Structures are given as C-alpha cells and as structure tokens.
C-alpha cells in the first residue's frame, strides 16, 4: 500500500526518489493494466518531471512543495493542457485540452507528477465504468467484478498499486462508491469547496472533485491542496463561508436505522453493525435518527441530474471541437454528431432531462424535485443539531459482476446512500469498514461518514482517528 507520507519521507532521505516512484508506477501499469484497464492514457514523459523533482530533493532537502515527485492519476473529465480529455466519450475521442483545470494547476504547483488519465463511465454517467466508450475497467480486488463508477479507473489505479492518489469527480456517489468497491478511501467535499473550472460539467448543482487514496490523511492533504476560492468558478466557497466546527474527543453518530431496513445486503449490514460496535467501544455515542426524505430523495436526483446533463451536454454539437459528422444541413451535423458520439446511457439521460424540462412538465418534475431538495436540506439541518456525523454504508452491496446489472433503474439504486449527500451539498467520507465473502473472495465494503456543510476538516480528523489508526 502506497501513501504520500511514506513516499515523501523516502524522497527526503533519498533512499527512493521520484524517478523510482514514477518508474514503479509505469511498471505497475505496464504489468497490470492490460487486464485492469484503469488508464485511458499513460504519460511516459512523466519521467522527465520526475528527474527534475529528484534533483530538487537533492538540492533543497525538506523545503519543497508538499506533493513534489508524487505520482498521481486524474479522471479523464479533468482538463490537463495538451493532454487528451475524452470524458471516456467517442465525441471527445481526439480532443486535447487547451488549458489546465484549476485543480490541475494547483496539483502541479504542489509538485505532483501526473502519470496518466483514468477510465470512467462516459461523461461520469454510471456506477460501474461499463459505460466507458473505450471498454470497462475491472476491479483489482476481483477482476470478474466492476470497480464501481463513475470514477472506477481512478479507484482501480490506486487499488492496483500504481499510484498513491487519484482524483475523481462525484455527482451522485462517483468517488465514494468506487472507493467502497475497491477498498480505499474516497472523499466528496462540501459543494463549492473545490473549483470545477476545467472539469467537464455533468450536474452543475451536484458536481465536486475529490481524492481517492489509501489513507484519510492523504485524502486530507490532497483535498486541502485542491480546495479554495477560485475566481473562475463562482460557486466556490472559502474557509469562512460555513462556521468552523470543533474537533472533539468523542462524537455523536446518527444512524438512520429505518433507511437500512430493506434493500441492503445482509453481509454489508453485518459489517456496518460491527463498525457501529467498534465506535461504541471507542466511547462514541450512537443514536437513532430519522431521515424520511433521504429515502425518497433518490427519485429527485434522477430528475435534477438529467435536467442538468441535458443542458450541460448541449455544448457537444460537432461544431467547435470533438467528433463532427458529415451532414447536408446544420441540423444534420448536430443530430448525427451527437448520435455517433454519445453512448446509450448518455442519450438516455439527455432525453430524460429534455423531457423533465419541457414545457408543461417543468413544474411537475424539476420544480417538485427542487422542492424535495430544499426539504431534505431542512431535514438534515435539524438532524445535525443532534449529531456530529451521520453514518451509513457507502453502498447497499459489495462490487457486482461485470454485465450483471443491465436494467438502468437497478443500477441507479446502488446510489441510494450517496445521492442525498450531493442533493444537499454536504461533505462525505468513505473508507473500508470490512469485507464480505463472495465466491470465496473477500470483497471490501465501505462506510460513509456524512457531516454538515463545511465539516470537511472535521470528517478528516474523525476518519484519521478511526481508520488510519485502526488496529
């Protein structure tokens, strides 16, 4: 297991250099990625940067940027100047980014070395990476199973040992769910904490970028580098937007028991109950909470998200960049480019979004869904008066097999615990809580810690105590 702090300690002593780290990352990718397919693009020229970083460690020793020489991977919906940014879609198959996303600029500034772009569901729509136009990613824990999604390639790149950290994006669980399936840490920040400038927009009122790592401490380090006010993204917040929350010794955890009553795998529930026992033993308080709207909230997500998808993806029209089909008229060019460029799930969501936004239906769907969201935020606010953290399993089941879920609705219901977090804009951390056995293989399952708006640092503090320092 690779961690940033280990790497950095070695880089400083010089026993192991950024060149070694990048060479090792490339070697792991070469050895395993033919089978796993976590990467859509591998940057062999990263070695040049690694040489520079190695030299800098020799010359300066300790006084160097926090991620200098650390190999990282980025989901391919994040723009890196001069590199292909495909969103795992045929419509952007040959598109090269013309600028760096704000988070990329920050990661580069901190010295990180980007070794490749990771696979994902097309335009981040899906929960298995099977919707990638370039073929699915396999779960390194069990290659018959999906790594989750949509940031499945990012999760797999960390789980297969190629990189200590990969960046993903999360619109309804796309960082936390693959983290859970692959047995690693994933973090979805408070809405607005991280700039989306240079990220391919999916659901703009929901999207956030965050880290996938092996430890909570690494997730915190990388999140702190990426976050902050950005004049290029008017939804970004700063540290003073929400009140700072005190870090304590003992916390109150709320468990929505009614929410866990059905639809959840018995083994996952067992692992979750074991986790609760562990918290009790450590002296934390566990209380029952009611979140009736969270249960019903998933439906509103499948209105709001496709509505925003249909608007955001209107830009891919075959005119200014990306795939362009031949056509007799302008309308022909639009319709054919989009027909050839988009996959089935993307088309489905665009049509669904077009439907819920169309005249006569707007109030019945989008209007109602926004009202549900508002009520969910109010419900949550009340609950957070009583508890510090809300606890749920990250997903109702462990990773499923490739090709197992062909019904879109069945796939959507994997998001039941993660989606309310995006709908309300609060932060959530997922880390492994245990393992369940399937076909004689141990599969990891994650627990989700949900905090109030602005509680990002507090979630890291709790996560470090409970996960990083586990026995």
């Amino acid at each position: 297991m690779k961690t940033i702090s280990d790497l950095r300690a070695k880089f400083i002593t010089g026993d192991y250099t950024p060149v070694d780290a990048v060479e090792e990352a490339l070697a792991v990718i070469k050895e395993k990625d033919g089978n796993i397919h976590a990467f859509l693009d591998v940057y062999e020229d990263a070695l040049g940067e690694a040489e520079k970083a190695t030299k800098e460690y020799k010359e300066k020793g300790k006084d160097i940027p926090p991620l200098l020489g650390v190999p990282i991977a980025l989901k391919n919906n994040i723009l890196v100047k001069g590199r292909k940014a495909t969103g795992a879609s045929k419509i952007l198959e040959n598109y090269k980014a013309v600028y760096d996303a704000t988070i990329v600029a920050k990661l580069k500034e901190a010295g990180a070395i980007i070794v490749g772009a990771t696979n994902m569901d097309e335009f981040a729509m899906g929960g298995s990476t099977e919707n990638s136009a370039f073929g699915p990613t396999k779960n390194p824990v069990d290659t018959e199973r999906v790594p989750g999604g949509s940031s499945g390639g990012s999760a797999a790149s960390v789980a297969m040992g190629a990189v200590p950290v990969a960046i993903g994006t999360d619109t309804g669980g796309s960082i936390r769910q693959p983290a859970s399936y692959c047995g690693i840490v994933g973090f979805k920040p408070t809405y607005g904490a991280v700039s989306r400038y240079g990220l391919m927009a999916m659901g703009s009122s929901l999207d956030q970028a965050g880290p996938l790592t092996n430890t909570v401490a690494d997730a915190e380090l990388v999140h702190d580098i990426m976050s902050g006010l950005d004049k290029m993204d008017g939804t970004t917040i700063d540290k003073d937007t929400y009140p700072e929350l005190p870090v304590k010794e003992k916390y109150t955890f709320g468990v929505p028991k009614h929410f866990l009553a059905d639809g959840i795998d018995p083994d996952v529930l067992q692992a979750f109950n074991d986790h609760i026992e562990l918290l009790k033993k450590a002296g934390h308080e566990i209380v029952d909470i009611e979140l009736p709207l969270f249960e019903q909230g998933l439906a509103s997500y499948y209105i709001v998200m496709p509505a925003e998808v249909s608007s955001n993806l209107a830009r891919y029209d075959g005119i200014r960049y990306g795939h362009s089909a031949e056509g007799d008229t302008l309308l022909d060019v639009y319709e054919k480019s989009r027909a050839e460029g988009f996959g089935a799930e993307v088309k489905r969501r665009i049509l669904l979004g077009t439907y819920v936004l169309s005249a006569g239906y707007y109030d019945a769907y989008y209007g109602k869904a926004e009202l549900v969201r508002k009520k969910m935020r109010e419900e949550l606010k009340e609950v957070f008066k009583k508890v510090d953290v809300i606890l749920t399993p990250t997903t109702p089941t462990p990773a499923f097999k490739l090709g197992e879920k062909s019904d879109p609705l069945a796939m959507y219901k994997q998001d039941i615990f993660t989606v309310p977090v995006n709908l309300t804009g609060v932060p959530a951390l997922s880390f492994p809580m245990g393992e369940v056995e399937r076909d004689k293989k141990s599969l990891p399952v994650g627990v989700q810690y949900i905090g109030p708006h602005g509680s990002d640092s507090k979630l890291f503090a709790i996560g470090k105590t409970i996960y990083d320092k586990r026995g």
Partner: protein
Amino acid sequence: MLGFMKKEDIEHLATLARIRLTEKEKEILPEELTSIVSYVSTVSGIVADDEKATPEVGVRFNIFRKDEVTNASDEFTEDIMAEMPSAEGRFLTVKKILHTGD
C-alpha cells in the same frame, strides 16, 4: 397519462435534444424512459401541490474583476483552432443556415 411514452414522444424529444435515433433505439427507449419516469414521478407524493421552490445552488455571490484584457493576443488561438473540425484561415466554418433564391 403523465410519464407514459410512445415512440412519437421519443422522436420529438430526440429532435429537441438534437440526437438522431436509430430505429432500434426508438423501439427500446419508450419502455426504458417510461419506467424511469414512473419512478421519478414519486416526487410528486413527497410535497404538497401548491408548494413552490426556487432552485438553490450552494452559496452564491458575485465575482467582479477589472474590465481588462488578461491574456496576450493569440495566446490560445492556435490551440483552440487545432480542435476545430472545420476551419478556414482564422475562421470556424459551419453549414450555411440561410438559403437565398435557389
């Protein structure tokens, strides 16, 4: 019935969304979308009919900057033009949309 979709409805949506569907897609999509729409219609049972909401997106504030040029002339032009499917000189070419006479 709200939410029940026929082939013609899908064709209309596809035109609005600027996606040309194949015959096969036109056969599958009505059923798929009807099942999703009937599921999402459950939102209407959660809140009262007369309640209205203004969409809220996080915390919003205005960002102002001085009205001055922040990039050098042509700084990005070449890179952006390199991505254009069809260009002439410094122009993006598109299909003619106004037809006169003929």
